């Protein structure tokens, strides 16, 4: 069954989705973040893929369950079901193909139609290693991100540039929202059993908080 790290131990479990047009590099961003791998010969994603990684924020262990989705429009019939319960999203476009950036607004709408308004969204301009082919100026994207109230970063899965930062930033922001909210409503976060979803108000992100002993 392959090798597993002993990563059953975590304080928070966040579900994150990777979305964006086909061929922008979602799967390679995921494999860079979870396995530190990049493949020049990757196959197009059919349906959904899944991977996890654990990071530390403050003194907490945060585990990310990341769903990587097929980018072709027609696959949304299957993939949009995976938006449910997500508390974070990386919305990826390819800086060398302007049309993938133009479609970002549609992806964002799709996302917001399916889940809470306050899901943490990171706009990700991937493939910055292809500098000579850039078609989307950084300013254009950062302006969009500001207007739409999303985070923004440019990455290269190939050169492992900013990939770590992009994912970590999303997870950290989710953590901030969740822990702040838990504080506000005086909830004892350790009392929630594992697997239970905390819905912190209608307009807020939800997250799964682990408590008790692991069943691993």
């Amino acid at each position, binding site marked *: 069954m392959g090798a597993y790290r002993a990563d059953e131990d975590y304080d928070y479990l966040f579900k994150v989705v990777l979305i964006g047009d086909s061929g922008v590099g979602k799967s390679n961003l995921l494999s860079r973040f979870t396995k530190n791998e990049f493949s020049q010969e990757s196959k*197009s994603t059919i349906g959904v893929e899944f991977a996890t990684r654990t990071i530390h924020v403050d003194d907490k262990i945060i585990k990310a369950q990341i769903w990587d989705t097929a980018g072709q429009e027609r*696959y949304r*019939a299957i993939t949009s079901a995976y938006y449910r319960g997500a508390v974070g999203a990386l919305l990826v476009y390819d800086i060398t193909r302007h049309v993938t950036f133009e479609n970002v607004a549609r992806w964002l709408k799709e996302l917001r139609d399916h889940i809470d308004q306050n899901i943490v969204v990171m706009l990700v301009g991937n493939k910055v290693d292809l500098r000579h082919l850039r078609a989307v100026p950084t300013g254009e994207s950062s302006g969009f991100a500001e207007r739409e109230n999303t985070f923004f970063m440019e990455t290269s899965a190939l050169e492992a540039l900013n990939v770590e930062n992009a994912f970590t930033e999303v997870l950290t922001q989710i953590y901030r929202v969740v822990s702040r909210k838990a504080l506000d409503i005086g909830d004892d976060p350790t009392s929630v059993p594992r697997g239970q979803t905390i819905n912190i108000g209608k307009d807020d992100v939800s997250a799964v908080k682990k408590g008790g002993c692991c069943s691993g």
Partner: protein
Amino acid sequence: MESKVVDENEEGPVVPMRVDRFGFVKQEHGPTEGLARSRSAFEYQRDERRIRKWRKMIGVGGSDWKQYVRRKPHVVKRRIRKGIPDCLRGLVWQLISGSRDLLLLNPGVYEQLIIYETSASELDIIRDISRTFPSHVFFQQRHGPGQRSLYNVLKAYSVFDRDVGYVQGMGFVAGLLLLYMSEEDAFWLLVALLKGAVHTPMEGMYLVGLPLVQQYLFQFDHLVKEHMPKLGEHFAQEMINPSMYASQWFITVFSYSFPFHLALRIWDVFLFEGVKVVFKVGLALLKYCHDDLVKLPFEKLIHALRNFPEDAMNPDILLPMAFSIKASPLSLSLSLPSPLLPCD
């Protein structure tokens, strides 16, 4: 059975590439493929005998085939389940899928589609060409004959059926066919499958909303519960549903990520008997790994459902197991409740 692709007399940087008997580049420390070992004299003779039998059954260029199938359908079914000899596979696939007839009825149509028509899907197709069987020598070379053929077939289909157009996953189907037949033959086999020349049309798997994929996943879910109640229960508890692991089984008929020798054996039966075998093979995989799967928590389950152990993917073990499963007509006739809720 191994061969080197690189011509050693050629000048220039020689990168020796080792490929398996189907043309896939071997990973240096990859798992040893079940069929990679050299075949024994016994196996060789057995294969020769089988090929002779098959040749007799088909006749020259397939001339005796239809009559043979009419006279002895059970013999044909049994032999196909044992695997079509690789050297005859391309021809037999065209015979059993009905694509040969389509080709003969439509002379010049393929050429027309390729040369004179344009498709809205052209860019989508191009983007996926190098991402389809990237580890196969035929498709590896940028703009090489393999990639060109793949593009042509997919473009032709996207013009032929503009409602379907091009959907990711079709490339693996077309790619698999192109390893066994010409572009035009592969195109008509694609038409035969999607339009339902012999069996249920597959086009619903690729149309907007992927309705047939959703229906099959729904039915598969029921079949798991029916045949393996304990596992079905466990899946429900861990919130695993078939769309997490089986979409690609249906969309590409096991050609996306399964060992190629297994995919071919499944395709033999799929073309002759229809989509039922996809359900049965899926169930057999779960059955084979049942005792492990019922113990695994969510994440490990997902991993296990995407990485079946090598012994589970031996066609001579898996297929007989699949054939012994009686998928009840009830489950196979189930249709989705509306509105569609694929993830629940």
